[in-house]
């Protein structure tokens, strides 16, 4: 695992973080549930909690889908290529490429959901980008969520030991959990604990 330069993290007074979706995207509840599940994966192994806000105003994290140039100097490049990017704490911007074909999976942990395809598993990307929002950089461990690349058709949503060690270096473990070492799968929950 790695960190951003200077190892930025959310301050101690900010353990309950709110997130909101850009309203112009008009995302369905199915899409929002994918993000809720993604946040839950990080909440399970840290003292952080995530709650969805209906308003951008005051939200710690803002999530939106954009195409091409979208104002942050890091334009998206159409289908495939770069899929998403996110800021380091405490900025809280998560941008996804609106030109991708996204798969809204309803759960399951299989590593390859499809043969070679240009469809990208949204939850896999969301879990990765939330790692950035919380302060993790990229990892060289291929099984880790924070590995920078993912093939179209692949699904990788479970935090690896490397991810958990990295995030717990920044925030410590979940005081109500088991540290994430042998946590049971919560794949089939409809909304997860984050929502």
């Amino acid at each position, binding site marked *: 695992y790695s960190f951003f*330069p200077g190892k930025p993290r959310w301050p101690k007074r900010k353990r309950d973080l709110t997130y909101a979706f850009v309203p112009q995207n008009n995302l369905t509840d199915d899409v929002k549930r994918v993000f809720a599940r993604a946040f839950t994966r990080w909440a399970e192994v840290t003292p952080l909690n995530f709650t969805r806000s209906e308003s951008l105003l005051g939200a710690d994290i803002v999530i939106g889908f954009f195409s091409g140039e979208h104002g942050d100097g890091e334009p998206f490049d159409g289908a*495939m290529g770069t899929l*998403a990017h996110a800021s380091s704490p405490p900025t809280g911007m998560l941008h996804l490429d609106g030109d991708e074909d996204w798969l809204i999976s309803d759960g399951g942990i299989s590593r390859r959901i499809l*043969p070679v*395809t240009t469809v*990208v598993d949204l939850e896999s990307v969301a879990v990765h980008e939330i790692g950035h929002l919380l302060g993790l*950089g990229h990892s060289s461990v291929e099984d880790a969520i924070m590995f920078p690349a993912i093939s179209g058709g692949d699904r990788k949503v479970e935090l690896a030991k490397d991810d958990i060690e990295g995030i717990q270096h920044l925030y410590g473990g979940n005081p109500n959990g088991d540290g994430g070492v042998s946590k049971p799968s919560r794949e089939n929950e409809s909304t997860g604990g984050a929502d």
Partner: protein
Amino acid sequence: KFYSNVSSIPPLQFLNATQNAWETFSKLAGCHIGENINGLSKLKQYFRRFGYITGTNNCTDDFDDVLQSAINTYQTNFNLKVTGKLDSSTLRQIIKPRCGNPDMIDGVSEMNGGRKLRTTER
């Protein structure tokens, strides 16, 4: 577009699997230091985009020591055999879809055990 399940994906999406701007890098396979090949400048832009090349000089189509150093670092970060060449396994990794955040910031990589690696364009 959002697809709610695998069966809702049109067959065309499977056929378009290689639709990716970075696929053009595949034709650079086998390039090595000293060569001047059309397309290497785009590959240098890719490496600059993800932090492997720093500096503001124009990217050229020369396979120079800057590019070789960037490839070495990339191969280290992605657990590939460090050859400094554009071999097939390196190119397969390069063209994969990926996160837009850089792997290196200010020329420093903390990937792969925190090894400090630096590449500067001259």
